[in-house]
């Protein structure tokens, strides 16, 4: 890993708690890692796993999902739905070879600006340790297409397998 790797992180925040927690961290001038691009949703229950997969396949190195503490959802129980989706999504990501730590769920109330800031910084450090999810970028670069025959980087010769197979 290069030392100067700056992770790109997409953060999904809930309008009623965690977005306000981020706002509070800002107005209180707390310092936290600037790698997170926040997207506000009305509720963490709005989080379609498509958003996470879209972010990861488009070049994000990690995704942070934040919502109200259990039992404190503005829409009664939607954050439990986010929790269930998040846990199943982690299983699916593991199967795809993505470290499950790249997607994190954080509960933060509107008063917890400090918690939001520290969790963000901790997450950025975690992703920094994991390194870039370069596969997402490789997939974009290759566009999923087989290039012309002159470019052998995509097409693999069968005869090279003897070297690749596990011994």
């Amino acid at each position, binding site marked *: 890993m290069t030392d100067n790797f700056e992770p790109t992180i997409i953060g999904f925040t809930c309008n009623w708690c965690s977005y306000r927690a981020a706002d509070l961290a800002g107005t209180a001038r707390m310092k936290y890692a600037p790698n997170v691009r926040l997207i506000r949703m009305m509720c963490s229950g709005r989080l*379609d*796993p*498509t958003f*996470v*997969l*879209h972010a*990861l*396949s488009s070049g994000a190195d990690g995704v942070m999902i934040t919502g109200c503490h*259990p039992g404190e959802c503005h829409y009664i*129980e939607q954050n*439990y*739905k986010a*929790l*269930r*989706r998040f*846990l*199943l*999504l982690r*299983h*699916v990501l*593991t*199967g*795809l*070879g*993505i470290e499950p730590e790249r997607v994190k769920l954080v509960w933060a109330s509107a008063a917890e600006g400090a918690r939001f800031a520290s969790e963000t910084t901790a997450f950025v450090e975690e992703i920094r340790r994991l390194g870039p999810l*370069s*596969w997402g970028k*490789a*997939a974009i670069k290759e*566009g*999923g*297409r*087989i290039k012309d*025959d002159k470019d052998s980087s*995509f*097409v*693999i*010769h*069968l*005869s090279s*397998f*003897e070297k*690749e*197979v*596990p011994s």
Partner: protein
Amino acid sequence: MITNRKPTFAMYWAASCGGCEIAVLNTHEKILDVEANFDIAFWPLAMDAKYKDVEAMEDGSILITFFNGGIRNDENEHIAKLLRRKSKILVAFGSCACEGCIPGLANLSPVGEIVYTAFNTITTDNPHEIYPHTAFDVPEGELHIPKLSKILLPLDQVVDVDYYMPGCPPESHQVSAVIDLAIEVIRGLADLPPKGSVIGVGNSTVCDECPRARNVKLIKAFKRIQDIAPVDPTLCILEQGVPCNGPATRSGCNARCPQAGAQCIGCYGPAEGVMDYGARLITAFSSVIDANTPDEIERILDGIPDPTGQVYRFNLAGSLMKGAKSAWIKENS
């Protein structure tokens, strides 16, 4: 242009099982309508043909090509590009061409591992560890076999596709309907659907066609269908605890599997407006879990032994991720 010649039809298989061709033949006497209205230009399964004959055709001279199978090697790719050039209308026919289907699940493994498994596991007698070579010298010259690509790609990631016709295989009544439409278009009785349309399908989900009763029942455990006996014939299969792919899957099959007492496995691909099939299924499965604590949710999720294979069974190659990281990138070890 007035001509006495019939329009031409072609069908090709790339990385597929051949079931799509059987589905076309399974239209029974409808196949005679194809013969009556089309000249068959190229159809390796049904009649003898050589690639050089297709190469000699004029560009755009084939009216309609049904292309089934994904693109797994350079031969598939070559023929896909060739048939694209020669065809006016190219239809991605069947789940493999549309979204990768079962062969697309190989995108979970590096290509070296796939070949190793095929030639060197306990079920294979290969004591000298002989692997195929892409080029081989014989007295008559050098022989070549196709080179595998890193991952399997759906047809539309390699060439421009006009229409999609999903299904594994497409149901015969849908194939018949598409053949009828093509004949009507030739006779000037109907217009072509807009480019990029998904044809021979419904516009909703399998659940919409499924006659089983849906309540708001929540479940405490996921089970395999063979572990519940008897399966309630009238109640939603997902609500009985079996992961059923119906909520994310496009309609068009008349919910054939749920009607027969089995869970939908998702062969008709993502429903209208679904960007990532697996993500939609994650949402659907999560919605029936009756638990609020992480430990309890994890215990219920343990009932799905292979979550990735379950939610991407037919759709991995066509999903946002396209495959597993190990298939894309060679890990440094």
